[in-house]
């Protein structure tokens, strides 16, 4: 009787294990665009030599997610992929200098009108020879639909950021569902549309950014819906419902939602598959692509985005597993990559980061509310040495709100060199600045100042992150130097998980910490008004996160932002004024502005990148050697 018991036990255990096996029988699905068949049984033949050919594999250390439509997430590889599959048909395009230009491949004619009520209308006549990847003509309706859809309550109900038409007259009422008619968006003809920008958004130096519009395939995303304009504004028929939006955009149950599987696109490439198992993406050249703004068609047939780890990424380049690794900034990987370059296995291209790592101060409370203290702390750090230790020379030190990639720096290098305070390790100067501002050394070895009749010790509470090289270096290079001249920096190290939560929230009145090590990337174009405005709605959060109340900075950045377009000289003058004011105030101490490296196989040619002209654009001009 004992044997059957053992057999039953083993059978039960086996069933238990097999039940788990059954659970994983269905392997990771590869999303296939609807209508496409399974791959052929034999390896696909390369396309004819006249068209695009060859395959390039791009290594990505950041995980690619299933999101291929704007409105939800925006991680860097997905941003690249979205640009490749949806880009190219926007009304404006980026040129190799990183500047926006009217996309003459898309726009036949642009007319602007300043209206009496202070609004401004951009009227576009579009070229009529462009088609979607399924062959359907691209018309003005697709552009108008894109704006209506991404501003609609139906889109918002999908959890998306419904801000597509935020700048236009009538947005608020349209989003709120009060009206079906979007008065600021007009469908004027088969290839003609206009948008009218709200008066309160004007004037703006870069006002054309509010007229950068791209299309979405109306026929594919809104089947059965009609889009009309009776003279009051564009609107969609009642068939456009949350249910339809859910079905065509967000349906994830069978992988047909456009967000996850955009099958009808207009970019240089088409999404062939996203493998949910190993998170790789395959793109293929779109034969219906209209060409770049300067009329170029991509010459590489297939682009594969493949996940990598930093630890093995250069070995994968050496072994030919990947052909291109973009944006490498870690020292160990740069040196491994440069060794491959020395051996002729790889080629590299570099560009300056359009941003930097920094020490951020909260400037409205405590000792760091005094510019003298912030300047003194900047004079307590040998930033050149910091950079050598942190980035082994693969980063540079700047003295204000610019990177070496900024045109304003490149055009005014000498002026800035002469007029900026160059912060380096200079304890004597730090003491001079502090004493001139009334910070005197106390018996406790800490400086003090009388503020509003009360004694304020020079103690700076610093919130740092654990397991962070920048924190480690600041701890050994800055804190002891500051202590020598009577600045006590108290460190509280928290896990990066809690880091953000420990910072001051948007509406918190009291600051607990005053100094942070963080990083920022400038926008393109860089408009710092949001970051230094004194307006209440800009306070804290993502905007004035230095909590700095400086009327001068507010005035300069405001004048930059709300300047009439066209007068570049006046704009640049303000820009320089801003950089110099920032340098005096030191709301942030710039620490390191990295040099980024793209490493790639020598068979990839004509691949020219820059700080504002990255893989998304450069790959369209690249070729593969035989």
């Amino acid at each position, binding site marked *: 009787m*004992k044997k059957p*018991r*053992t057999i*039953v*036990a083993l059978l*039960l*255990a086996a069933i*238990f*294990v097999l039940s*788990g*096996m059954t*659970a*994983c029988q*269905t*392997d*990771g699905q590869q999303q296939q665009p609807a209508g496409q068949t399974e*791959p052929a*049984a*034999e390896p696909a033949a390369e396309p004819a030599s006249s068209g695009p050919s060859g*395959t390039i*594999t791009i290594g990505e250390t950041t*995980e690619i997610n299933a*999101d291929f439509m704007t409105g*939800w*997430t*925006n991680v860097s590889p997905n941003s690249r992929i979205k640009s490749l599959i949806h880009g190219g048909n926007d009304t404006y395009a980026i040129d190799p200098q990183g500047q926006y230009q009217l996309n003459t491949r898309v726009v036949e004619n642009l007319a602007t009108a300043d209206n009496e009520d202070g609004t401004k209308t951009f009227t576009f006549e579009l070229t009529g020879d462009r088609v979607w990847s399924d062959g359907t003509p691209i018309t003005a309706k697709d552009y108008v639909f894109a704006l209506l859809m991404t501003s609609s309550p139906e889109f918002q109900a999908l*959890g998306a*950021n419904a*801000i597509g038409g935020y700048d236009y007259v009538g947005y608020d009422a349209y989003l709120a569902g009060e009206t079906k008619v979007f008065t600021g968006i007009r469908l004027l003809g088969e290839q003609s549309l206009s948008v009218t920008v709200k008066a309160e958004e004007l004037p703006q130096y870069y006002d054309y950014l509010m007229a950068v519009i791209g299309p979405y395939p109306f026929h594919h995303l809104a089947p059965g819906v009609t889009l009309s304009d009776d003279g009051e504004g564009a609107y969609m028929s009642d068939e456009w419902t949350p249910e339809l939006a859910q079905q065509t955009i967000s349906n*994830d149950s069978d992988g047909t939602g456009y967000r996850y599987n955009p099958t009808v696109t207009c970019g240089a490439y088409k999404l062939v598959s996203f*493998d*949910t*198992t*190993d998170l*790789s*993406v*395959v793109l293929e050249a779109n034969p219906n692509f209209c060409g770049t703004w300067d009329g170029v068609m991509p010459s590489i047939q*297939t682009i*594969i985005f493949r*996940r*990598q*780890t930093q*630890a*093995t990424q250069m*070995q*994968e380049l050496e*072994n030919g*597993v990947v052909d291109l690794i973009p944006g490498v900034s870690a020292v160990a990987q740069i040196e491994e990559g440069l060794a491959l370059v020395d051996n002729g296995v790889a080629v590299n291209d570099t560009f300056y980061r359009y941003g930097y790592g920094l020490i951020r101060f909260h400037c409205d409370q405590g000792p760091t509310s005094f510019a003298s203290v912030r300047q003194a702390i900047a004079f307590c750090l040998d930033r050149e040495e910091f950079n050598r230790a942190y980035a082994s020379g693969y980063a540079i030190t700047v003295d204000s709100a610019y990177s070496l990639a900024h045109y304003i720096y490149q055009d005014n290098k000498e002026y800035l060199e002469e007029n900026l305070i160059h912060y380096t390790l200079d304890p004597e100067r730090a003491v001079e600045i502090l004493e001139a501002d009334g910070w005197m050394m106390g018996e406790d070895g800490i400086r003090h100042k009388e503020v509003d009749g009360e004694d304020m010790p020079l103690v700076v509470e610093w919130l740092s992150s654990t397991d962070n090289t920048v924190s480690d270096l600041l701890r050994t290079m800055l804190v002891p130097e500051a202590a020598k001249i009577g600045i006590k920096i108290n460190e509280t190290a928290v896990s*990066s*998980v*809690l880091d953000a*939560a*420990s910072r001051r929230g948007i509406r918190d009145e009291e600051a607990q910490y005053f100094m942070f090590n963080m990083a920022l990337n400038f*926008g393109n174009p860089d408009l710092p008004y*949001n970051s230094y405005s004194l*307006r209440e*709605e*800009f306070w804290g959060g*993502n*905007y004035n996160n230095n909590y700095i109340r400086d009327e001068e900075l507010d005035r300069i950045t405001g004048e930059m932002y709300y300047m009439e377009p066209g007068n570049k000289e006046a704009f640049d003058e303000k820009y320089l004024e801003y950089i110099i004011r920032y340098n005096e105030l030191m709301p942030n101490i710039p620490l390191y502005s990295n040099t980024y490296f793209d490493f790639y196989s020598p068979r990839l040619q004509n691949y020219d990148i820059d700080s504002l002209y990255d893989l998304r654009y450069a790959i369209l001009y690249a070729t593969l050697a035989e």
Partner: protein
Amino acid sequence: MAVYILKRLGFMVVVFFIVTMMLFLIFKAVPVDPVNLWLADTGANVKPEQYEQMRQQVISQLRLDQPLAIQYVYWISNLISGNMGYSGFHKAPVRQVVSSPIRATVKMNIVNLVLVFIISIPLGIRSAVKRGKAFDNSVQVVTILGYSLPTFITCILAIWLLAVKIPLFEMGGMATPNLKGSWLTLELDKIKYMILPLIVMTFTSLGGLTRYIRAAMIEALSLDCVRTARAKGLKEKVVIYSHAMRNGQITVITALTNWFIGIFGGSLMIENLFLWNGMGRVMFMSVRNNDWAVVFAMSMFYVLIALVGHLFVDLIYAAADPRIRLT
């Protein structure tokens, strides 16, 4: 038996609800603003008015403007109906975020489990039988090495040796992207990617179980019944596999079922270094990205697995050992 199972199922329901409440409160106490996470990608790219509007939208969508009790009721009713929630980081249903990783992890763990048991049971038995001899000492050294070397080092060494220096296997990933061919070709390709992480996983897992079985067998071999069997002149194989092994089987069953309960949890280090898109990596990334909806849902899933798993352990014990009675 049926009454026992029903009773246990009843307890499981109660325990499950208590755990859901506790976990809900714990996750609510984490000092992270879920709205900020939702809007993290938005950053300073939108105007403050837009940001505030989006903020209010998210608060309303996540029902953060409702009392805690209502939030719990909403969450638990969704969970019961199979809706595991919505990932703030991925902006996608949790089910969608975890479905592929969980399959990948289970697949890897099951193959690993089978391999480890196939190797460690005979190894443990033979080590016990040859206790103190060269074979036993060698097994001890090798298994201790796998057991004590940091997994990170083992992974890097394995990649360096078997994928870089002697390129027998792939460095990482789960399949060759854009590979075209027959079903068999595609499956073989997947297996090719699985081998190296599997070797590392098996190597690092062998130590514990082999030593566990060895200890159980040493104890079993010293039992009176084994001595009697030997005295009766039975063959050594019969003594070991029929008499001693029977007494050691509870150990094996305990190990097997405990491993099964852990089958849905991935190895963070192995998955990260070999780019195996599994649950260890997902959980780590979710914690790192403050994506508590995923952590929360998966914690609940693991609780459920543990509850069911322990019921199965008890049933298997009762089936294997006549001395155990379930009441």
